[in-house]
């Protein structure tokens, strides 16, 4: 398959190799993160006037799904501020490679807690409490602060980026969809790595990956540490066709299926709550602890843990029966999880277009008046309009859903032996796409 290795451009290589450009970006995101927490705690309680709400839930969340992931895979992880303080302590310095200098117990993450299960659980929590978090600057700030402290504490107990690898829901989200993204880090010449005894790249990797063994972009955070310590300049950063990690021979685990299904359920439920005309559903999702909320939570969990997985298991079971090999159902559930990746990615993009385009008008006013205290730092007119869905945005949403169905059907066909075998998975994707179509433009 075609690849374009960025490190062959001396200028790009210099930018990736130096720790400074990345540090500057990280310093900016960390400062922004802390400012967001402060704005959330001290600023206006009117969500749409508070920097914290608008920047986290409109600007960043949109940028992640419309830019970072579809054009850069896990590129956000490369500049994410959350693990930074802990990592600096672990490394014993800010511009330091991983080594023995830092502090921390460096314990290994427990085996039973590995995989993306907890990340999926975190995403379920976002869904269950999202309506409140999304509208309350204070709670958004408290959640961000909690995450920052948790990541710091974990990095002092466990080795490397255990928080990112096993707990961070956004890490799970980015990793899952990075498999469809157009960026990958791989070794250039496998023989050079095989002959290299010290494996400095593995020692340096905050993610615990061994570049020679990288087959998927799901678990590589694109931090470039391996590229910096490799004595043979043997690390490539490739631009590649979208969807390169999805195919008949790539390896996938069953927890990826679960994560993919949780993401689909979240997109469905968020669309119903935030874009639908059902006021009672909104109030139920918002009034946490009320009887209505328990009804909502039950319905959400039944969708995420019952209905969607049920349909997926059914489709996989049928596909399995149409196949010639007697693969176990468990194996097939993992194998066909690849279909959920492009489907979920495009559905989230469509949802984001619907959700965020309307609210972009809020962004400039909170830049000029971040705390909602009536400042006008940039001298702009400050009132945000109501916002509206344009016919362009609607057509774009339909187009994104169409691409998602095409792409997931194509993956289903490529990883099946026959069309008949792919048909149940295509039916699953169609059903889900139609539900989203109805929620977004119905």
């Amino acid at each position, binding site marked *: *398959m*075609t*690849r*374009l290795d960025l490190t062959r451009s001396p200028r790009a290589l210099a930018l990736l190799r130096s720790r400074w450009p990345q540090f500057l970006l990280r310093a900016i995101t960390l400062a922004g993160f802390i400012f967001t927490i402060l704005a959330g705690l001290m600023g206006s309680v*009117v*969500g*749409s006037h508070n920097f914290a709400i608008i920047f986290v839930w409109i600007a960043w969340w949109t940028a992640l799904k419309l830019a970072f992931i579809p054009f850069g895979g896990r590129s956000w992880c490369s500049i994410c501020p959350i693990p930074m303080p802990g990592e600096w302590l672990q490394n014993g310095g800010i511009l330091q490679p991983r080594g023995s200098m830092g502090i921390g117990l460096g314990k290994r993450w427990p085996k039973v807690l590995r995989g993306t299960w907890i990340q999926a659980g975190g995403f379920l929590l976002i869904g269950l409490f999202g*309506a409140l978090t999304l*509208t*309350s600057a204070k709670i958004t700030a408290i959640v961000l602060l909690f995450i920052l402290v948790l990541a710091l504490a974990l990095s002092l107990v466990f080795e490397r980026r255990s928080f990112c690898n096993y707990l961070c829901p956004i890490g799970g989200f980015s990793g899952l969809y990075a498999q469809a993204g157009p960026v*990958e880090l*791989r*070794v*250039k*010449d*496998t023989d050079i790595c*095989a002959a290299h005894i010290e494996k400095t790249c593995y020692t340096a990797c905050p993610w615990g990956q061994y570049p020679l063994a990288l*087959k998927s972009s799901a678990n590589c955070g694109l931090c470039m540490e391996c590229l910096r310590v490799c004595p043979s300049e043997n690390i*490539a950063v*490739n631009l*590649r066709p979208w969807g390169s990690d999805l195919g008949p021979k790539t390896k996938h685990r069953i927890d990826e299926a679960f994560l993919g299904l949780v993401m689909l359920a979240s997109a469905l439920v968020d669309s119903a*709550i*935030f*874009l639908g*005309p*059902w*006021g*009672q559903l*909104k*109030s139920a999702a*918002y009034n946490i602890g009320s009887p209505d909320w328990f009804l909502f939570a039950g319905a959400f969990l039944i969708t995420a843990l019952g209905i969607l997985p049920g349909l997926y298991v059914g489709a996989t079971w049928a596909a399995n029966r149409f196949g010639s090999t007697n693969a176990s159902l468990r194996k097939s559930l993992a194998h066909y999880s690849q279909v959920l990746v492009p489907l979920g990615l495009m559905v989230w993009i469509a949802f984001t277009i619907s959700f965020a385009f309307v609210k972009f008008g809020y962004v400039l006013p909170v830049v000029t008046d971040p705390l909602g205290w009536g400042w006008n730092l940039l001298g702009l007119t400050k009132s945000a309009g*109501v*916002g*509206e*869905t*344009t*016919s362009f945005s*609607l*057509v774009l949403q*339909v*187009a994104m*859903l*169409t*691409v998602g*169905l*095409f*792409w997931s*059907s*194509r993956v*289903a*066909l*490529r990883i099946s032996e026959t*069309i008949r075998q792919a048909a149940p998975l*295509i039916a699953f994707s*169609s059903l889900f*796409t*139609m539900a989203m*179509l109805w929620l977004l*433009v*119905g």
Partner: protein
Amino acid sequence: MPMESLPYKTTPTNWKRWAWVIPYAGLALLILFIPLPLPFHAPQDRLLRIEASSFQFTPGEIQINPGDRVTIELVSTDVVHGFSLDAYGFELKADPGQTATGTFIADQAGVFRFRCSVACGNLHPFMIGKLQIGPNLLFFRGIALGLLAISAALISVRNVSRGTT
């Protein structure tokens, strides 16, 4: 364990394999944008009474026909709420207990969201209703596009198995 082939080794993309994209893209644009005749209904005068409360409109989903002359009576049952209709630039504002009235001609067909335009509380940005004017053509176009997408997937994969990869 066998090593995978070198990832930075490049083979030129076989663009012929993707030749089907052009007619399919044309067909997709046609499905999305081709004007379709709407069933004709004699325009009516409609009086719609919409109750706004935190954070919903009742009724939240309304269907009318293109060409109808619509008079909205917006009643707020708690705090001040607004009513702003996408694409129409039509706006009302109702004080609690008072009725705000406005009229417009439904000259654009499709499904339009209406939103509260006065900050009324935490869920205000999501206080939304739906006004459907005529049949929802975009939804049906979307379904036709979905079928097209599946057939495109079939074609693309058939070309893969005949192609070089």
